[in-house]
């Protein structure tokens, strides 16, 4: 048998296996558990990479769970796909690769970071489950299964955010997230049910092939867009995000960044692949742009006045998600206008997709550096820090790279994706580009503040005994730094191999549909 055919299933099997075996493995002591955590996330990374290579070489790959053959999507001449189908196109594979890199870095970081806490068997279990849920959201081709995976990842993240149960704020943040995400999931489920009642199908590609806009479909679209935008932290619904990001253990925060990107993936999948050109009106694209602008500007202006390091970065997550929504919204706006699409729309989508990669890498790295500071000093308030650059040189170096990348300073990858977004959104209306530029300036301002107060300045007497963090944590950060530097130094290579196939797959609605409905006969 050819393992390449089973890669879409394997990428789910491996983290699930890790989640199930973790309680047994933790009987073997600390070392066995840590090896399991790192090995599982590393294997996931390898499989994600192979899947990505496979998809780039052979086109969309899909997988029928429990079918007689892995690619029998329409058994015995049926007109509709019936089983649970995983569908991986270049965009999904790209997202899964990003998620797997971040998951690996977070696992390496957690080995030392979580060393002194009990209940680590459960931690490893939930971490693997969160990875499985995140990757499941990215590879599934079935709207109900998307709901299942969103719930798996939500439940795992409630547990992980409240992992330090003796910390009142962690419980509070977890409760807020649990409440809002439960309400949001119910909206998603009602949308999936409505689509099923209308078309008797749950497969995204099959629904996309027969969808006709009516008031029901409009409401379904709104429910899906609203809920998934809430999950990735768009402006009026973002309040849970800084709380949850700030209070979770840092290795988990790093993974939560990737999980919010999985929700963004779902949003894009709904908008581009299910609805696509049949959406008709430009209301939803404009709403995505408006949400994007609002989250950009208000997120960053909240971040400027924060003085708790992880909370500040949490508000930056809100503002960075705005860039992606802006880029992809501009692309969605001109989806059925071939000339504008070639003119600036595809550039906007490329910018948005590239920003997803960049954001996942540098934001995860920023959270890891914040966690390293917390590990070394035991403090998370910027007022109590100072002069850490001499004590923690490697962390400082990586923080500077990440901060420069997130603020869009020229040599780094954040600049490239932001440039693509500025110049293409300028073609729609100059105001969009102006807001994006102002946001970038404010981002730089708030990271200058973090850098100046935490790393520069005179040493505090209370921080005299601070040391550099252990090697495993540094390696976790180095993985992400290497990804950032690679994307910064070779932007055209990254764009042509990593980003462009993903962007092309995203706009290619008929390809996504045809892979399922044309195969296996």
């Amino acid at each position, binding site marked *: 048998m050819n393992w390449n055919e089973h890669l879409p299933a394997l990428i789910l099997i491996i983290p699930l296996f890790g989640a199930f075996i973790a309680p047994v493995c933790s009987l073997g002591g600390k070392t066995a558990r840590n090896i399991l955590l790192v090995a599982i996330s590393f294997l996931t990374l390898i499989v994600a990479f192979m899947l990505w290579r496979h998809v780039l070489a052979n086109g969309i790959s899909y997988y029928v769970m429990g079918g007689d053959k892995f690619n029998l999507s329409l058994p015995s001449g049926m007109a509709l796909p019936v089983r649970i189908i995983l569908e991986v196109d270049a965009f999904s594979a790209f997202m899964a690769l990003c998620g797997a890199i971040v998951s690996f870095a977070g696992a390496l970081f957690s080995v030392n970071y979580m060393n002194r806490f009990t209940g680590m068997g459960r931690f490893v279990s939930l971490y693997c489950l969160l990875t499985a849920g995140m990757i499941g959201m990215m590879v599934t081709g079935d709207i109900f299964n998307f709901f299942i995976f969103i719930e798996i990842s939500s439940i795992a993240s409630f547990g992980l955010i409240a992992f330090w149960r003796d910390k009142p704020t962690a419980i509070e943040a977890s409760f807020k997230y649990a409440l809002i995400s439960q309400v949001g999931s119910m909206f998603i489920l009602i949308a999936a049910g409505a689509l099923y009642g209308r078309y008797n199908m749950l497969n995204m590609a099959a629904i996309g092939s027969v969808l006709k806009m009516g008031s029901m479909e409009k409401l379904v679209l709104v429910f899906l867009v609203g809920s998934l935008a809430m999950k990735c932290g768009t402006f009026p619904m973002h309040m849970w995000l800084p709380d949850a990001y700030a209070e979770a253990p840092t290795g988990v925060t790093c993974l939560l960044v990737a999980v919010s990107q999985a929700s963004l993936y779902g949003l894009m999948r709904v908008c581009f692949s299910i609805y696509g050109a049949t959406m008709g009106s430009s209301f939803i694209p404009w709403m995505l742009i408006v949400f994007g602008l609002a989250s950009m500007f208000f997120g960053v202006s909240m971040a400027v006045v924060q*003085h708790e390091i992880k909370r500040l970065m949490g508000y930056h997550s809100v503002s960075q998600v705005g860039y992606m929504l802006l880029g992809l919204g501009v692309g969605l706006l001109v989806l059925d206008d071939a000339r504008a699409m070639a003119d600036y729309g595809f*550039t906007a989508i490329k910018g948005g997709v590239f920003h997803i990669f960049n954001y996942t890498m540098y934001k995860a790295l920023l959270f890891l550096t914040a966690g390293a500071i917390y590990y070394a000093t035991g403090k998370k308030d910027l007022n109590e820090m100072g002069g850490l650059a001499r004590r923690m040189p490697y962390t400082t170096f990586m923080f500077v790279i990440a901060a420069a990348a997130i603020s869009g300073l020229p*040599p780094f990858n954040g600049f490239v994706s932001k440039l693509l977004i500025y110049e293409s959104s300028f073609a729609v209306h100059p105001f969009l580009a102006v807001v994006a530029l102002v946001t970038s300036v404010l981002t730089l301002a708030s990271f200058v503040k973090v850098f100046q107060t935490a790393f520069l300045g005179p040493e505090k007497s209370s921080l005299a005994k601070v040391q550099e963090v252990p090697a495993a944590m540094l390696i976790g950060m180095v993985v992400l730094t290497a990804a950032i530097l690679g994307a910064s130094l070779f932007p055209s290579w990254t764009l042509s191999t990593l980003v462009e196939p993903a962007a092309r797959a995203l706009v290619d609605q008929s390809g996504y549909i045809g892979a399922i409905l044309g195969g296996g006969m």
Partner: protein
Amino acid sequence: MWGKVYTGFGYWDASAWILFFFIAAFFTLWLRSQGRSDYKKGTDQDEIYWSGNEVPEDGEDITVPASSAYWGFRKALEPFYKGLLGMHTGIATDIVGYYVIAVAFLAVFILLV
């Protein structure tokens, strides 16, 4: 691999930027190497220059805490920040409320347009 990234209106070239960095670094290091190493130690030449003021012994006294950074910015935008911070009440039901209102807004308007 080292090529240019075309944005439709212009392009970005990483290698040119890196080249510029090397040139700038060369000039900086060259300027620095012009400095004199035969200054007199222990005299005023050795002192830290801090805007002509006395340099305090303990640096901790003169640091600006993070919550006071950008004080002017915050003061100038006082009404804006008052509204924005007033929105972040931190009450769980308010968070859900904003979400439900946003979805209801979208639902009403998508049916109208």
